[in-house]
């Protein structure tokens, strides 16, 4: 059998990629330095934060990097700043740090609860918010609430800096538009909604610890003059990215947050919109569809209840 040249070259590249081993692990002290390192090693370097996902991918040959550029010693990456209109979270904060932060708890219980649901205590002590965003698993328990809260990411790279909505960073399962060989998330910005608002997170998994969610959901309701003025309802994994149930969101506008019937109706609409697949691990599509309704309903009732 003959192999044409391009296939041969591709095979060689692939083989080389598989055997490319981490040769150095660097610790830049500043973001600028980190970008310089990415530039210097042109594509063979890659950002690492907690490294919990990346380490396994490297081992399994699903990712490769010769140089790891570690952001966990950069001070700004671990900052948490409250401003009058938003919270700014450093992407290097661990899930444990976010879950135990009282300011996050006060404004965004959905995010606290989501971060508390990630993996196990040992994973939460290493894994980071930014790392979970770039890993781009659609049902990441820390990312689903961030999408419901309308979070934005500031991204810095070789070609400058930009700010994007987090929900637009998903390309597919495990694929992020943030390219860790060229750029790094430097801040996660979560706006405090104007006026009264409430948010909540709900999940179900086979066990209470160390189990991926069968379904999770996060919502945020904003109320103006006694009526719902904005609603965000996110559920996963029912698509390649966290799924916004936009019809359910729309049907809540103008309704009273205390109207349980309306909240339940919205959850029912979310169920109709969501199209979870049959999964050997997570359960049948039909079962998970029913769970979308239950969890969205739970989250909406709690978010509405927290409005006071």
């Amino acid at each position, binding site marked *: 059998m003959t192999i044409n040249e391009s296939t041969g070259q591709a095979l060689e590249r692939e083989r080389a990629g598989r055997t490319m*081993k*981490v*040769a*150095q*692990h660097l*610790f830049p002290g500043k973001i600028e330095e980190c970008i310089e390192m990415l530039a210097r090693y042109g594509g063979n370097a890659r950002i*690492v934060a907690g*490294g*919990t996902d990346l*380490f*396994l991918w*490297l081992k399994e040959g699903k990712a490769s990097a010769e140089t*790891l550029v*570690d952001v*966990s010693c950069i001070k700004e990456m671990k900052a948490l700043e409250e401003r009058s209109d938003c919270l700014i979270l450093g992407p290097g904060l661990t899930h*444990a740090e976010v879950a135990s932060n009282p300011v996050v708890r006060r404004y965004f219980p959905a995010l606290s609860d989501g971060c508390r649901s990630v*993996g*196990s*205590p*040992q*994973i939460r*002590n*290493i894994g980071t918010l930014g790392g979970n965003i770039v890993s781009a698993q659609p049902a990441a328990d820390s990312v689903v609430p961030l999408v419901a809260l309308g979070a934005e990411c500031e991204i810095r790279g070789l070609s400058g800096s930009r700010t994007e909505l987090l929900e637009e960073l998903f390309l597919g399962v495990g694929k992020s538009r943030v390219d860790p060989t060229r750029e790094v998330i430097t801040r996660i910005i979560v706006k405090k909604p104007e006026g009264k608002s409430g948010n909540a997170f709900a999940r179900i998994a086979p066990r*209470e*610890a*160390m189990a991926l969610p069968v379904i999770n959901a996060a919502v945020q309701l904003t109320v103006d003059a006694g009526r719902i003025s904005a609603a965000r309802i996110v559920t996963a994994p029912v698509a390649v990215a966290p799924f916004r149930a936009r019809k359910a969101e729309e049907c809540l506008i103008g309704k009273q947050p205390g109207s349980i019937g309306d909240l339940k109706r919205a959850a029912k609409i979310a169920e109709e919109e969501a199209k979870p697949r049959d999964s050997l691990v997570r359960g049948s599509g039909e079962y998970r569809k029913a769970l979308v309704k239950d969890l969205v309903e739970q989250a909406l009732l709690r978010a509405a209840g927290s409005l006071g």
Partner: protein
Amino acid sequence: MQALKCVVNGKDVEVNVDPSRSLVDVLRTDLGLTGTKKGCGEGECGACTILLDGKPVNSCIIPVMKAQGRNILTIEGLAEAGELHPIQEAFIEAGAVQCGFCTPGVILSAKSLLEEFENPSQEEITEALSGHLCRCTGYLQFYDALKLAAEKIAEKKKATYGYGG
């Protein structure tokens, strides 16, 4: 190879390591600290748990260079001057050790918990141990051991610092 400098069980350590390896592999094979176990190697079972700057982490999914400049405690560092740590004594007395594979990790998570809460609730204990799989004990003995350990530590403090210390 890269030079790794860190503190392991209170001692300064300097060792040249291959940065593609995991922390648990270096602890076990290069430093000879085989008390830390490797079960799944994927962050699922908790057997490889060590304390990194006082916090429990899975050493099997940590690239070894992440230990640079940091403080590591493994099960070997718990006993002092040949005397078992009160948590270790409590585990023996409560019958919380069977095959022993999960035990070093569980004891280190227990240590981190008891440093944060002198008298943890059942809920806090369950949560702190939720990242450990044990196929032998059924967990109830862990809970007894932790409560006993909390008492032992409190007694020891009283003996060292006197009442109200």
